[in-house]
């Protein structure tokens, strides 16, 4: 209790009119708490952190927390993040995006941010749906399910966000669900230490919309589904693609080193700068 009171007092904006906008049972709050816990234990002060979001349910997260916060346009959080990090590399730049936000409208920015490798930490809250607009198909909506924009069943195959990030060049790629909160905190801690573009996919539940078409009737059922379908990455390595069909592989999936953009640019400045 004491810890929670301290986190609430220190990190939530007292001047902001609560309650938050998220539905009861939404997974975003669980992620927000995990993020605050990890930052509280980290070396970063609130002044060091810039938290940037796009548009959608996840886009509303930054306004509640007492960092430098920026609510940008739909899909473009990473472009603003790039400008901020390059101008002031001392800042710890975090982005939080939704699935439609990051890999549909923001897909181009996502792959290029990963390729470029500017030090930006990206959290992608994947609830498999456009929640704020009323439950439309997103690039991570499973095939065949019916949504408000695919009333006869979704024809399109879905994206694996982590594989996309890996292929595009992210130096750290991880996945957790909001059910696995301890793992989530551990992965957030790891990603904050990576000096390059890193991605944590946070599988979350939208019981208002996705729950309906996935036939999981309550937030509790959705989180049980997360628990039962998640497979730690170490265990997943022993299994075949067929066995992993429909499962959520969780843990640190990619952890590698690559020269990052802003440090290389800084050396260019040092070389070219006219005294």
């Amino acid at each position, binding site marked *: 209790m004491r810890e929670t009171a301290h986190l609430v007092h220190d990190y939530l*904006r007292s*001047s*902001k*009119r609560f309650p938050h906008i998220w539905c009861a049972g939404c997974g975003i709050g669980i992620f927000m708490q995990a993020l605050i816990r990890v930052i509280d234990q980290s070396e970063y002060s*609130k*002044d*060091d952190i*810039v938290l*940037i979001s796009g548009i959608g349910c996840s886009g*509303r997260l*930054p*306004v509640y927390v*007492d*960092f*430098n*916060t*920026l*609510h*940008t*346009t739909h899909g*473009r959080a990473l*472009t*603003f*993040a*790039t*400008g*901020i990090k*390059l*101008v*002031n590399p*001392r*800042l710890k730049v975090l982005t939080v995006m939704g699935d439609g936000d990051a890999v549909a409208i923001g897909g*181009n*920015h996502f792959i*290029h941010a990963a390729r470029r490798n500017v030090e930006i930490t990206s959290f992608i809250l994947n609830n498999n749906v456009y929640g704020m607009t009323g439950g439309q198909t997103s690039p991570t909506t499973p095939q065949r399910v019916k949504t408000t924009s695919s009333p006869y069943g979704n024809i399109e195959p879905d994206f694996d966000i982590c594989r996309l990030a890996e292929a595009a060049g992210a130096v750290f790629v991880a996945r957790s669900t909001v059910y696995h909160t301890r793992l989530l905190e551990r992965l957030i801690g790891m990603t904050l230490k990576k000096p390059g573009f890193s991605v944590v996919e946070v599988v979350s539940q939208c019981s208002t919309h996705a729950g309906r078409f996935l036939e999981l009737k309550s937030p509790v059922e959705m989180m049980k589904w997360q628990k039962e379908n998640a497979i730690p990455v170490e265990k997943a390595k022993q299994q075949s693609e067929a066995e992993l069909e429909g499962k959520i592989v969780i843990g640190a999936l990619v952890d590698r080193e690559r020269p990052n953009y802003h440090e290389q*640019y800084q050396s*260019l*400045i040092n*070389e*070219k*700068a*006219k005294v």
Partner: protein
Amino acid sequence: MAGCRFYAGYPITPATEIMEIMARKLPEVGGVFIQMEDEIASLGAVIGASLAGSKSMTATSGPGFSLMQEHIGYACITEVPCVIVDVMRGGPSSGLPTQPSQGDVMQARWGPHGDHPIIALAPSSVHEFFELTVQAFNLSERYRTPVILLVDELVAHMREGVILPDEDSLEIEERPHPTVPPEWYIPYADPGTGVPPMPAFGDGYRYHVTGLYHDIRGYPTVRTDEVEPLIHRLFTKISKDYDRLQWFDSFETEDAKITVIAYGCVARAAHRAVQKAREQGLQVGLIKLKVLWPFMRRTVSRILENSQKVLVPELNVGQISREVKRVNQSRCEVLTMNKVDGTPINPSEILQKLEEIYP
């Protein structure tokens, strides 16, 4: 010289040279250049850089300018200073990539959705391009608003001798910074000037920036008593200074029976035409507009009162001439002269027109 230390852009004819020069020059002065994946990303990075405290700009042409509208609107409502150069080529769509045009005048005014103020400047020579770029940064910082440099392909690709002023002689403005400690800072409260002080991210003033309508603390709101004052302030912070934004050059207007109103490369052709007409004894004059938005109602009104006819030559189907007619209210005859075939208007064409319509 204006203090720009960040450039993000995407290659596009006929604006790419600006990007190439910035890529070479910025590291030399400790600034940052980045080539982004598209124009939307470019202006996003520019706004981010400005929020982090750096004077920032991008440059593009028609198709890229269309993509940037989303973030121009964002910069307007979040009040983030930035400069956007639009080198106008023939449009719509891919249009005429290598030919001059003045077809983006109305897009510069109303490109982003929703009501918003905008400042757009139009140079007609290389030296003026330099001068107005410095001014674009100054206005952008002073009013915390995006400023657009609308330049036609002809002026952008022009080579001519210029004498650049001494760096120390330039007046360079900076955005207002908060003078109160962070705990007293209210990010969007009107300090009386209409322009709230703006700290950089990382300065210790943690605040929220959003493209939603926001209250004075920056938090999203739908309250009518918070939405209306914000949009009102966005307009009045600039409109209160309309007097200061009447930038023009006038030639031989005192006794002019016909006054030409022009901007950009067309103003140069018009200048030559007016000189030649004067040699023939025709009483004609020229007003060259350097500010297109906000429209210089006051200056144009004076011309309309003192001339019998006004001629507005443009490389479009009539964009600024509509504004002139709007301001005119039947005081004099407003004639248009439009060319949209990708070629410039020549002095002889304007001269011929002046002779035709001379009273």
